[in-house]
């Protein structure tokens, strides 16, 4: 049995270095072909008709006019007459035509009659009404009532929250489908290449188009953003395959931007009325919260607050508001940004009431973080130094007499990030070429590069000597890329597969070097006696001994090479114009651990990107619904605001590496750094202006309202 381990620090040529992503040239030259870019011979374009109502029964569907239009080749009714729609723009009918413009016109020509039903598109618990709400949690630990009665307890109360936001993937959801007899090929924009065929087979069989999963070929070479919203074979994928079957031609159907924004996923809202108490020395004693939020038509699960710092005495309830805004999907670090915002805002408000520096307050209570307390203790001083906390932090509101105020805020976060179940095949060919095959996908996180680094490091080869194949379900199955699970899934399975393949090669080579395989290593393009380059043969010579047959090494996710559970500290400095209400992020510091880092360059990019995404949801993003008509008012990118390049100040990232961190093995990184920006920025604004702006995004009207200067919030 081979022994699998990561090479020691002094024996790493590639792992942990800053290595440029290997698919960078394809992307920055425009050569990379995303699913949206696939054009097939004879291909049709598909478009969908969405519901005009937020909630309705479909009374009548008339597709005759659409079907008779020039160039229209197929129509598929996705929800039949008598069916129900649960949000405005929910997809009902799909059409395919020989040009994109004709498909669009045909979709417009479909006539649908509705029987409107009662709907709710806001998430206000007080006015929602009983039929739209469901209590999902009500837990009590310790004795909160008694705890809040303690003399000398300092208590802070507040309401905090974040609205529904969308994923806003730049490559909208969708796919190209093509039949060849009873075989189906799908170029899908998905985070779940290996898990897609089974979903297609099941759903298509339900629609009377039987196809075996083994006959479905799924390809995703490049993916233009998912963030948790692209795991499923969606209704439009199934309809696309049906259209292609009916028309006998390939069909491309990607969501229009308004559909992407209304239908293809949003992050649940969360609000809470919080009461939290501590002793005068800052020791956290009790927490009480009534929380609510919406995740669309269904209510399930319950985000857990307080986040990380949970005292002995807690009462916490959560009520789901079931409304007609379209279903929530996992959004990068599901629930954590909302839980962090509410908890860490309440904690900083309490610290302010205690006249304590919030960093001292968090550190005073950090043992409540359990096993991760040491990580935060390591990280706090680093973050504080990088943002110059001790010099710049001031008590709340003491930020000078001018109209522009500066303030600092902080937040902490955690995440699991254990590897998904992945399988890797490493093939060493007799000519010395090497390939890795794995049914994973690269969302832009650097998955290709990570696999390349691990395989090359293991085989003692340069990066370019290894060809990385992924994004195709004909390769060994790999888990979906969600929840920061991919880096451990692919790097531990690749390490194992490459080690197995190498061991076989060493066995073939050992006799010619007059030794046994256990005395050999792959290093610097050679197979050599361990530590002795003079007794070696080149990689190419070694592989030539294979004769005609390549070596295949298999590996799967290896728990011994990975772990889970990370901690991160972020601090933010903002400037608030108290006359206009405009908030600017001036500087943001992120200190993050993720165990053993495979590629420091793309790891840092994940953290930078998360902080920038965080600026977006902290300051700009909100899915705005109109209760009068039931529709989304900003299903586009001019009124659904993402942060632009000029909205982002200086960002400093520090990755925790070296002793104490590397030996944990790999841990996922995608989610954790996106958790804290909302809380850190909200806290910085409170520090700057002396009052809490209770809800994200921290838009000018909300800031002015909090300052008592009007505004709509």
């Amino acid at each position, binding site marked *: 049995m081979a022994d699998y381990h990561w090479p020691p620090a002094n024996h790493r040529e590639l792992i942990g270095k800053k290595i440029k992503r290997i698919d960078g040239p394809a992307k920055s030259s425009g050569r990379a072909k995303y699913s949206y870019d696939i054009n097939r011979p004879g291909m049709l374009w598909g478009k969908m008709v969405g519901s005009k109502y937020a909630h309705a029964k479909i009374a009548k569907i008339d597709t005759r006019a659409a079907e008779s239009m020039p160039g229209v080749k197929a129509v598929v009714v996705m929800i039949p007459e008598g069916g129900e729609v649960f949000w405005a723009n929910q997809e009902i009918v799909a059409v395919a035509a020989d040009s994109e413009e004709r498909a669009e016109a045909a979709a417009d020509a479909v006539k649908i009659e509705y029987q409107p039903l009662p709907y709710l598109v806001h998430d206000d618990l007080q006015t929602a009404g009983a039929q739209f709400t469901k209590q999902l949690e009500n837990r009590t630990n310790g004795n909160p009532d008694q705890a809040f009665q303690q003399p000398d307890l300092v208590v802070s109360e507040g309401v905090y929250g974040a609205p529904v936001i969308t994923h806003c993937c730049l490559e909208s959801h969708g796919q190209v489908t093509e039949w060849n007899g009873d075989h189906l090929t799908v170029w899908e924009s998905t985070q779940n290449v290996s898990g897609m065929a089974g979903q297609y087979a099941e759903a298509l069989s339900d629609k009377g188009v039987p196809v075996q999963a083994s006959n479905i070929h799924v390809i995703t070479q490049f993916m233009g953003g998912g963030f948790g919203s692209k795991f499923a074979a969606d209704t439009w994928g199934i309809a696309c395959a049906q259209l292609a079957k009916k028309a006998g031609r390939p069909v491309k159907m990607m969501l229009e931007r308004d559909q992407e924004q209304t239908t293809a996923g949003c992050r649940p809202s969360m609000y809470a009325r919080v009461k939290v108490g501590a002793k005068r020395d800052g020791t956290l004693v009790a927490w009480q919260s009534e929380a609510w939020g919406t995740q669309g038509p269904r209510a399930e699960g319950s985000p857990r607050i307080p986040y990380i710092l949970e005292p002995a005495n807690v009462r916490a309830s959560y009520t789901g508001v079931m409304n007609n805004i379209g279903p929530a999907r996992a959004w990068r670090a599901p629930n954590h940004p909302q839980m962090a915002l509410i908890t860490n805002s309440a904690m900083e408000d309490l610290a302010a009431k205690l006249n304590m520096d919030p960093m001292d307050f968090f550190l005073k209570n950090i043992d409540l973080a359990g096993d991760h307390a040491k990580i935060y203790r390591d990280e706090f001083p680093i973050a504080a130094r990088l943002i110059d906390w001790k010099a710049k932090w001031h008590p709340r509101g003491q930020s000078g007499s001018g109209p522009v105020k500066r303030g600092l805020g902080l937040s902490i976060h955690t995440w699991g990030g254990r590897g998904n179940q992945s399988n890797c095949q490493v093939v060493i060919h007799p000519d010395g070429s090497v390939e890795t095959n794995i049914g994973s996908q690269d969302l*832009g*996180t650097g998955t290709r590069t990570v696999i390349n680094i691990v395989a090359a490091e293991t085989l003692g080869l340069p990066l370019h000597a290894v060809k990385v194949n992924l994004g195709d379900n004909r390769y060994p199955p790999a888990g979906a890329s969600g929840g920061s699970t991919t880096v451990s899934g692919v790097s531990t399975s690749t390490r194992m597969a490459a080690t197995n393949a190498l061991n076989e090669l060493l066995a073939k080579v050992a006799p010619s070097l007059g030794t046994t395989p256990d005395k050999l290593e792959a290093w610097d393009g050679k197979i050599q006696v361990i530590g002795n380059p003079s007794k070696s043969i080149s990689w190419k010579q070694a592989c030539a001994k294979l004769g005609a047959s390549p070596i295949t090494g298999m590996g799967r996710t290896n728990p011994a090479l990975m772990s889970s559970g990370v901690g991160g500290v972020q601090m933010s400095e903002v400037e608030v114009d108290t006359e206009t209400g405009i908030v600017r992020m001036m500087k943001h510091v992120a200190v993050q651990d993720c165990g053993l880092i495979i590629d420091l360059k793309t790891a840092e990019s994940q953290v930078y990107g998360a902080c920038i995404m965080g600026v977006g949801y902290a300051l700009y993003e909100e899915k705005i619904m109109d209760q009068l008509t039931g529709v989304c008012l900003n299903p586009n990118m001019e009124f659904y605001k993402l942060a632009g390049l000029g909205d982002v100040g200086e960002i400093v990232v520090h990755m925790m590496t070296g002793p104490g961190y590397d030996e944990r093995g790999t841990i996922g990184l995608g989610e954790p750094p996106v958790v804290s920006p909302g809380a850190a920025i909200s806290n910085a604004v409170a520090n700057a202006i002396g009052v809490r702006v209770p809800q994200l995004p921290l838009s000018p009207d909300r800031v002015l309202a909090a300052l008592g200067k009007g505004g709509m919030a």
Partner: protein
Amino acid sequence: MPSNDNAPPRGGEKACDGADSGARDNQPPDLSRRRFIKGAGIAGVAASAGALLADRTLAVEPESQNGGTGGAPGVLGPGAVPVTLKINGKLHRLSLEPRVTLLDALRNHLDLTGAKKVCDRATCGACTVHLDGRAVYSCTTLALDAQGHEITTIEGIEPAGGLHPVSQAFWDHDAQQCGFCTPGFVMAVTAYLNHQPNPTLEALGHALGGNLCRCGTYRGIKGAVLEAARSIRAKGGQA
């Protein structure tokens, strides 16, 4: 040649917006601006958009290379008409309905897929191409309207056997994650550096404010633009 005044608009130069009209009696709006512009027929667009577009959409210049439209002023469409586009130095003769955008002509008719369709209404810049060296949103430029101009797509800037200095700098600075916004950014940066070879960090927020990224690659982009500028200056050439 057209003056700057009637060149195809970029971004905020939109002349009409039908998206939020028509919400009466609790009826959700029925008409999107995109379909209005692209579906109403060219005469309708010109009437709404006013003088900005009128002379170039209504009247086809007789001496231009648009093969067979006859040159008589009048309404084009709704059927396909001959359209000639000069893209990356090469003439392409196409038959397109007048409502076809430059972006759709590139992607759907010529398989030039570097420019991406994202917001489809002149906000995000993923569709950025050059028209006579200026960055434009190809999603809101009609293909018809791009006739007679030098169209450059990202496929046209790559030198043989290597990356364009801007693309190279994006790679070096990891100014890309999913990469879907990247070609649009590269084209916007290239046009900008031709106009401003010595950019400052402070100027970039405005200069690149017409492009959006979802993964959060702006830090890398800032570094990439400054490095690309240095690299192009060192070679003494144009971006």
